[in-house]
């Protein structure tokens, strides 16, 4: 049985465990051979900034887990376009080459899902 899972996050990395907890669900969905997409909204787009180095705050580097997502066939990564503008970032400079969605496309993405898991 294959369902379409959408995982939604709006929290930045490191200040809370949200980013890591989200990735753990994503990897598990993939182990169960489910279609999984990630939608990073608001501050969650900051999870995709390159050159993170959280060694001194004794956390695992998210970039390392992110770079393994393709191995798990998790390649549908979306960010909200408004958040890019808010933070003055462009999708091309972020890891995983996310697709930027304006509200219409974001709503379409949600309508295509069987299960939405927010975090």
């Amino acid at each position: 049985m294959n369902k379409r899972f959408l995982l939604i996050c709006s929290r930045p990395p490191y200040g809370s465990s949200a980013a890591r907890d989200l990735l753990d669900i994503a990897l598990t969905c993939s182990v169960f051979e489910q279609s999984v997409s990630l939608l990073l909204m608001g501050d969650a787009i900051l999870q995709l900034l390159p050159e993170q180095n959280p060694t001194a705050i004794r956390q695992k580097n998210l970039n390392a887990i992110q770079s393994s997502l393709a191995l798990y066939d998790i390649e549908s990564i979306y960010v909200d376009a408004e958040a890019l503008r808010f933070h003055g970032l462009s999708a091309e400079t972020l890891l995983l080459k996310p697709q930027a969605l304006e509200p219409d496309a974001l709503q379409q993405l949600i309508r295509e899902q069987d299960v939405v898991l927010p975090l």
Partner: protein
Amino acid sequence: MIFTLVVHASPVQHQAPETALRFARAVLEAGHTLHRVFFYRDGVLNGNTLVSSPADESNIPEDWQALAKEYPLDLVVCIAAAIRRGVLDANEARRYDKNQHNLAPGFELSGLGQLVEAAMLSDRVITFGGRG
């Protein structure tokens, strides 16, 4: 219809687990199937049997256990989230060399696979979360 509920928030610090409990009861009373309640993040504290409340206050972990006595319920606590927060069963206590364990009766520790599997089998998956 088959439901799965996901609870992310602490039973003491946030209202969300109480909302989830009322929703669970309404699902069961309407004759639907509640396939599983999966506790993740601070939601794992719902499975802590040591949560204690003054006599005139509600005790959400006890309320889950009471519901599980009325109906057959699968209350699954994410094992990775639980051990980090000090919610252990006898096996995990042994594994991590702790001399106490506190997983409440009626709950079981298992992996995130139980969340994904439940979502695959359910018609509706509803998350009850709190900011954090």
